[in-house]
Structure formats: C-alpha cells, structure tokens
C-alpha cells in the first residue's frame, strides 16, 4: 500500500517538479518537496567508523532489485524497482546516495538520471572525534525501512539490511 501511495505521490509531484539529476539537486529540492523531509541527528560514533559502515553495507544491502505486484479492485500494478547505492567518502564527509529505477506499468514523466531517480541521500560529517552529524534527505513516507536501516548503520545499533519490499 505504501509503495503504491509513494509511487502515485511521486508521479503527481513529478508533474510540477523536475527530477533532481544529482545528489546536490536532491538535497536542495527535498526540504520543499511534497512528502519530502530532512532528518538530522547526532550519532555518538566516530565519523570514520560510519563512513566504513556505509561503504560496507550499501553495496551489500542496497544493490538489489525488488518486484512488487499489487492489485486493487480496478487496477493491477507490477513494478520492478532496481536500487543503486553510491558511497562517496572523503576525510570531511561521507555521502550515501540511493537511486531507484522503476520498470513495469509505470510512467516517469521527466528525465531520469542514470541509475534511477534519487530516492534517499544520507550525509555524515564529523563533529569531533567521537560524534558525527547525520542528515538524511528522503520522502516522508514510503522509505521508512530504508531510513531506519541507514540510521542503524550510522549509530551502529543495528547494521542489518532493510527489507525493501516493505518500502
């Protein structure tokens, strides 16, 4: 249900908004976007540890394809979601970009960047030797499991993989 809602919302919002073509455009558009949100918190964990966790978990957990078939009284949906994670890490910042490409009976009314539409971006920046600031840009609905997983990777409290059939 949530995925269908998110897809519809995405398509509706797409009619008025040009899709971000890179992570920076995504960061800029999310705060004002319909159903967009920015979550910021402080992780009590060294920046380098978080960067390493992003680098390890993103390809392990997010390089996946998920097929979702759904049926209502009047319509049938069959969409293959292919996720593409990218981690960009320097001494001053670690970025996790998650893109999602949709195939099936769905129309994406706009230019999709290579790798798929930007779905979530998480930035980690060091505060001091033991604390790190985390900013997560993404939809306010339809990415709950992914967002929780990224928070778990940042805090180190849960480094499991998200079941993306739930988003």
């Amino acid at each position: 249900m949530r995925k269908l809602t998110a897809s519809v919302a995405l398509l509706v919002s797409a009619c008025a908004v040009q899709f971000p073509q890179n992570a920076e455009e995504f960061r800029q558009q999310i705060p004002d976007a319909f159903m967009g949100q920015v979550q910021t918190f402080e992780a009590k964990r060294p920046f380098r540890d978080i960067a390493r966790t992003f680098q390890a978990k993103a390809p392990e957990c997010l390089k996946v394809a998920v097929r979702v078939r759904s049926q209502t009284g009047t319509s049938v949906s069959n969409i293959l979601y292919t996720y593409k994670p990218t981690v960009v890490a320097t001494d001053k910042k670690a970025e996790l970009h998650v893109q999602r490409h949709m195939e099936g009976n769905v129309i994406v009314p706009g230019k999709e960047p290579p790798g798929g539409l930007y779905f979530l971006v998480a930035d980690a920046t060091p505060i001091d030797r033991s604390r790190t600031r985390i900013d997560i840009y993404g939809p306010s609905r339809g990415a709950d499991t992914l967002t929780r997983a990224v928070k778990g990777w940042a805090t180190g409290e849960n480094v499991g993989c998200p079941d993306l059939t739930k988003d």
Partner: protein
Amino acid sequence: MKRAIAGASAALVLAACSGLKSYPSDFPANLVVRSELDKARGSLHVHQVDASCRTDYRGTVALDQPSVAVGIPPDRLAYIVATFDTSSFFGGSSATSVGTLLRPRTGYRYELRLKYRDNIYDFAMSEAGPGKASRPIARRDLDTCK
C-alpha cells in the same frame, strides 16, 4: 484488498518458477543455519553452480527451527539463498531473499546466522576449520562467480 508479492533475486524467482522441492540430505551436515525470525518465515534454497556459473536448483530447507543442519557438497561451488516470507492482513505477502556463493571445504564447518526483525535482516556466514576458531566470510553475489 491489495495483495503484494515481492521478490528480491532472480534466483528466488527461478526457484519459484521451477517449483520448490525438499533439499535431499545426501551429504554430512557441514552447514548450520541459526535463525531468529520475528514475524517472518525462513527458508534456505540450495543451488549447485557449474563451471559456467549456471545454477541448478537442488532443493529447499524450511527454517522452522532455531537451528537447522544442512549438508552442502564439499569442494563444489554452491549458491545458498535465504528467503524471508512475511505476510499481514493489509500488507499482503512479500518475500525478500539474499544469497551467497559458497564452496565448502572438506572438513570445515559453516554457520549461517539469520535474523529478521522489524523489516531489517542480517545474513552472516562464518567458517571454522578443524581445530580452528570460527571466522566470518564475506557474502559473494552470484554475479561474482565469473
């Protein structure tokens, strides 16, 4: 009512299309699967992998106990896929799966720890040689076979 069925790997889809069958226990148990599953049913699908990296589905083991022992042919490449099935009244049913290539070594013991809770899962494989301590081994996607 909306019904959702989702899959996360081609291997699972292939296995599902060919029809699931019980995995025959023709080999001494060298893999122990320890699972902690909350609101999910688990299963393990075993595929043999040939020199051309083609998979041959050999069977499925239901992970209906906290610990299940499985015999994987040693010194041959296998593709082991764990599947978590969940269902709810409003959310329909879905399945997500994760797999790894594994070439068990003769005399070695392997352990796969699976967890599923709140839509987050863990998949951790380790091996222990004769008289040696257990060590984690990285998951290998099927596309790394070649």
